[in-house]
């Protein structure tokens, strides 16, 4: 167990590699109750969220969800999160554990008449069940990605969210906090492999989902990070002006994905020859090769570009690849 944002979290149960492979080929479960839940409610909520979140919230109907960013004036990223539209004037934001207070504080400070932000994180447990067999194991039908609805799993009332952080089919189940242990036990009882933080990181990195704190921070902007697709610049959200300037001028550096051409495991903080830096790195259990993401000058950001990474004093070759690094064959 390791301390993580004030929680004691297992890095692994059986082992990172078997857990990772179980999610890719079968089904795995992650206890992600450490993530934060913020309710935002009131008649002016949609208008308020549109002004602080990067994506176009007007595109959401009840029962739909969207990946979005909480941005600073200069286009930096306070947090990346998923917003679920519950009903007219009521949205649920699921934020990163480490940013729960920052995100809450940021929103609370900007709250306006007709909308109220409430940190409800302690009221919920959250279990992610991911993998090609995950829905069948839980007796759930295939549902459209980025939708949600109330349901029952193992006799426990849950909000079934068709979202995840692995690149696989799956759900995230939000239950009352007091039902969390029973929900976890039920899921694990359905021949679903318990997975820790280690596999969560390797799975998300293979499909190039950014990790806030590593790949995106308040110091990095959405355009350079390749997240322009979740920035509806016309909505005029906080930082939209700055992001438009970066977009128009073209960013100076880009967040690229790469695979190692030589044996080595890239790690966060390693220098990339030419002025770049690795922001996430690991060994890919699916591809059996070192993989990572990092910021490099645009001149080095094209697919196929060779990179040289300083692995504790040893220069090792890597190559820029198209995102995602791992793609399902079928």
């Amino acid at each position, binding site marked *: 167990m390791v301390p993580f944002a004030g929680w004691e979290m297992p*890095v*692994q149960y059986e*082992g990172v590699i078997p857990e990772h492979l179980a999610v890719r080929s079968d089904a795995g479960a992650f206890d992600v109750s450490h993530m934060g839940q913020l309710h935002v409610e009131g008649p002016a909520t949609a208008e308020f969220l549109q002004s602080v979140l990067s994506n176009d919230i007007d595109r959401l109907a009840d029962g739909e969800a969207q990946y979005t960013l909480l941005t600073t004036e200069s286009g930096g990223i306070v947090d990346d999160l998923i917003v679920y539209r519950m009903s007219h004037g009521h949205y649920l934001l699921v934020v990163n554990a480490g940013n729960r207070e920052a995100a809450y504080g940021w929103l609370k400070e900007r709250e306006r008449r007709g909308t109220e932000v409430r940190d409800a994180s302690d009221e919920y447990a959250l279990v992610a069940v991911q993998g090609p067999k995950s829905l069948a194991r839980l007796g759930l039908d295939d549902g459209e990605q980025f939708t949600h609805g109330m349901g029952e799993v193992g006799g426990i009332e849950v909000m079934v969210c068709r979202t995840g952080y692995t690149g696989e089919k799956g759900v995230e189940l939000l239950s009352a906090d007091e039902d969390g242990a029973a929900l976890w036990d039920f899921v694990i009882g359905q021949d679903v492999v318990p997975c820790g933080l280690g596999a969560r990181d390797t799975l998300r990195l293979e499909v190039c989902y950014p990790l806030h704190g590593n790949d995106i921070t308040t110091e990095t902007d959405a355009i350079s990070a390749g997240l322009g697709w979740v920035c509806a610049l016309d909505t005029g959200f906080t930082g939209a002006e700055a992001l438009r300037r970066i977009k128009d001028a073209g960013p100076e550096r880009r967040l690229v994905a790469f695979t190692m051409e030589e*044996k080595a*495991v890239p790690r966060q903080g390693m220098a990339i020859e030419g002025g770049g830096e690795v922001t996430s790195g690991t060994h890919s259990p699916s591809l*059996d090769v070192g993989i990572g993401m990092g910021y490099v000058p645009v001149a080095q950001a094209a697919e196929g570009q060779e990179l040289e990474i300083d692995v504790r004093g*040893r220069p090792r070759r890597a190559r820029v690849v198209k995102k995602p690094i791992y793609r399902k064959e079928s």
Partner: protein
Amino acid sequence: MAANESYPDDLRYHPEHDWARIDGDEAVLGITWYAQDALGELVHFEAPRLGAALTKDQAYAEVESVKAVSDVIAPLSGEVLAVNEKAVEEPETINGDPYGEGWLVRIRLSDASEADGLMAVDAYRAHVAEQ
């Protein structure tokens, strides 16, 4: 597949969880069951070059799991005569058979008397129990 915990009687042990199988003026080196278990499934063995000089108590290689990288400490001084290419190509071999197919390097000892400073199996077991 991970091996079961074991510490062979015929090896000499270093407190940094390395073993040496001494044979005349040569020795085969590796990491103990305890070390590989603490690291988890290994994905990379950064081996020294042939001919490299190892100094007792200093790092001469790295082993790396998905989670972490760790220096490998030389239990004895000497010159690298051979590197286990199987451990380089399939690092999980070190997990599966840390004292056999998962050996790391073979060296020519530069000072055979250094072996006197290493632990016999009972002392090493006691050392592991304290971790």
